[in-house]
């Protein structure tokens, strides 16, 4: 389209850079679209897949808004984590399938970011079996956490709770968003053909429904290898 595009195409393509259009789209266009053609919030975490190389190492981006959004609240969360860090790490070690896990606070959200092998539900369930009592203390600091404490009595509910707060992972191929939206609306994927020029709208509306998200599935330095395989290879004992 770049070659030989008429003045109107060039004008339309330049709209996102024009200040007046930015305001117009924020205030009118996007809310109007979203009202006419709403997209459901898409579920968080990695999607099930057939290929072991894709489904082996997965990423969790758990975002938990703090109850107390102040320096004091942030300090309390930091305290709970640091007081229990040994138990948390031992628990993660016992789950056996976790490559990395860390806690960070961004804008009054306590985030747990981790890379794990295999199935999400099994990871969270095994995690709770290992250190549910410690994690209960962390949950007491975040919004909605009281609903799932004690986690050992609410394993199913807690798995759903985490899934709900795990960031949506935008597909690596942008057009895959169509199929995900179809599935979330209960339609067979791509049952009606989607036009490529509807992709920007589909994407914008989705990112209205999922304001926080992960860009793609992420990079893996040693894709397709499990924690246990690496530990075994280097004689670390799995």
């Amino acid at each position, binding site marked *: 389209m770049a070659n030989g595009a008429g003045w109107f195409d060039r004008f339309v393509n330049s709209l996102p850079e024009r200040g007046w259009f930015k305001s117009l789209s924020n205030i009118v266009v996007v809310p109007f679209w979203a009202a006419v053609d709403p997209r459901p919030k898409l579920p968080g975490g990695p999607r099930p897949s057939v290929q072991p190389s894709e489904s082996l190492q997965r990423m969790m981006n758990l975002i938990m808004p703090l109850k107390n959004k102040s320096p004091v609240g942030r300090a309390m969360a930091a305290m709970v984590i640091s007081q229990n860090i040994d138990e948390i790490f031992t628990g993660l070690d016992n789950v056996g399938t976790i490559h990395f896990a860390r806690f960070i606070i961004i804008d009054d959200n306590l985030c747990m970011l981790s890379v794990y*092998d295999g199935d999400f539900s099994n990871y969270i369930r095994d995690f709770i079996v290992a250190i549910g009592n410690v994690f209960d203390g962390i949950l007491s600091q975040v919004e909605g956490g009281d609903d799932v404490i004690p986690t050992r009595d609410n394993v199913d509910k807690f798995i759903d709770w985490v899934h709900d707060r795990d960031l949506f992972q935008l597909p690596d191929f942008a057009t895959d968003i169509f199929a995900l939206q179809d599935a979330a609306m209960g339609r067979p994927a791509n049952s009606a053909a989607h036009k490529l020029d509807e992709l920007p709208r589909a994407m914008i509306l989705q990112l209205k429904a999922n304001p926080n998200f992960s860009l793609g599935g992420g990079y893996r330095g040693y894709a397709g290898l499990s924690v*246990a395989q690496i530990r075994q290879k280097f004689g670390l004992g799995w």
Partner: protein
Amino acid sequence: MSKTLDLNELQGNILRGYRADLTNVRYLFLEVVNLGEARRFLGAAIEGVTPGIPKITTAAHWADQKPQMCFNIGVTYEGLKALGTPASSLATFPVEFVEGMTRRALKLGDFGPSAANHWPAPFDRPDRLHLIATIYAVNQDILDDIQDQVSQAFSVLGVRDARARTDANVLGPQYAGDGSPNNRVFFGYADSISQPKFNHLTDAQPEKTSDSAPLGTVLLGHPTRMEGVMFRVPSPKALGLNGSFNAFRVLAQDTHGFELYLDQAAEELEQMLGERMDQLLPVDGEILIGFEKGQRREALREIVAAQMCGRWRNGTPVANSPSHPIFNIPNKDQAEAFNAFSYAAPSACPVGAHIRRTNPRDGEVVQRGSNLTRQMVRRGMPYGPDFDPKNPDNEERGLLGNFIGANLGAQFEAVMCDWLNLGLLHPDITGLNDPLIGANTPETSAFDLLLRDGTSYRLRGFPRFVKTRGGAYTFLPSLPAIEYLSQLKSR
């Protein structure tokens, strides 16, 4: 906490199997079309005194007289809705049950030829599949009678029959008459040897051995194998307590394809092993396996079959007897003899063997502490015509399987997605699928045969031998729960 269980309140098929006494089974796939009739049927089936309505079999001990027939029901999520279960109660059921088996396809390996869009009726319409009734009986006439009775209250969307088999039924008539128990399944293996045992009916924790399981393994509202963990009991308690969940599966087995592959593997081993052959099949090893001297290829086929399963076809665990099956154990003693084994290192059983992946017992696993937590109860019966490898055909035959546990996600799905496929339980097999029932393709499949010196030989290129042809997640309600469902008033 030590609650004692009232066996009269439990459906009988959870804690025990019927196959030993009742060798014919029929599954009825039912839709609720007349709500009043359906509720009346369920209400009457609890007492079982109304003529023309079968009594639901409970877990109560059978005295001297064994029944001629056992009748049980499972209800799908759609079925609970159709029976008028309130939304507030439906919301307390676990997500995997709510979504149903077809929407969990990728986790279960149901893709490609096993995908739900290839499933025949009634499994092509999970929205209409409301109940699965199971009839076990001594003969076909009883199955027909009970089906007639059930069809008065429900619309019968489909029927599947299965029956117990001997080795002659699944391995050919040349095996007839050696007195084997009728616990054979296609591919020729003796089945259902290892089950969690519930030899105590209180909530006291049993010894942590592999064959003694807490009630929470299969019953909601009781302590589980996971320390301190309870699964949510759906509310109201009358509906959820002492219920269980079942993954019902129609698993077609490519019996001919499996035998052909064993031929191919045996030929390959003869050609490729060379001097290492002694480490797999020593001189005259074929005689111990039950063949004539010189029948080396036949013996190699059995070694491959045994290592892929983890049991020789007669049930002998490879872990106990790596070089040959043990014969001449009286039938009554087989279950015990074939269950007493360990995977403590170094084990003679390959890590990738089917029964070791699905139940790693005391073997080391990546998910420390999960050795026993994913255990479930399995009840299966072979369907389709008998098979004779000498006169092979490609008729559909296989297993109607029930995988019963208190939590589908923590047990059935956890085994299916991480262990059976993917092999995440041990670094040596991670990335490989179960050789017998995994979602394999010849391009990527691999299985490491274990040689006596601890080295291995990698077999490749085997296809998917087992294809899913249908199934559903059902809730197995307690008797009070069936009464609750029968007394719902809505709609």
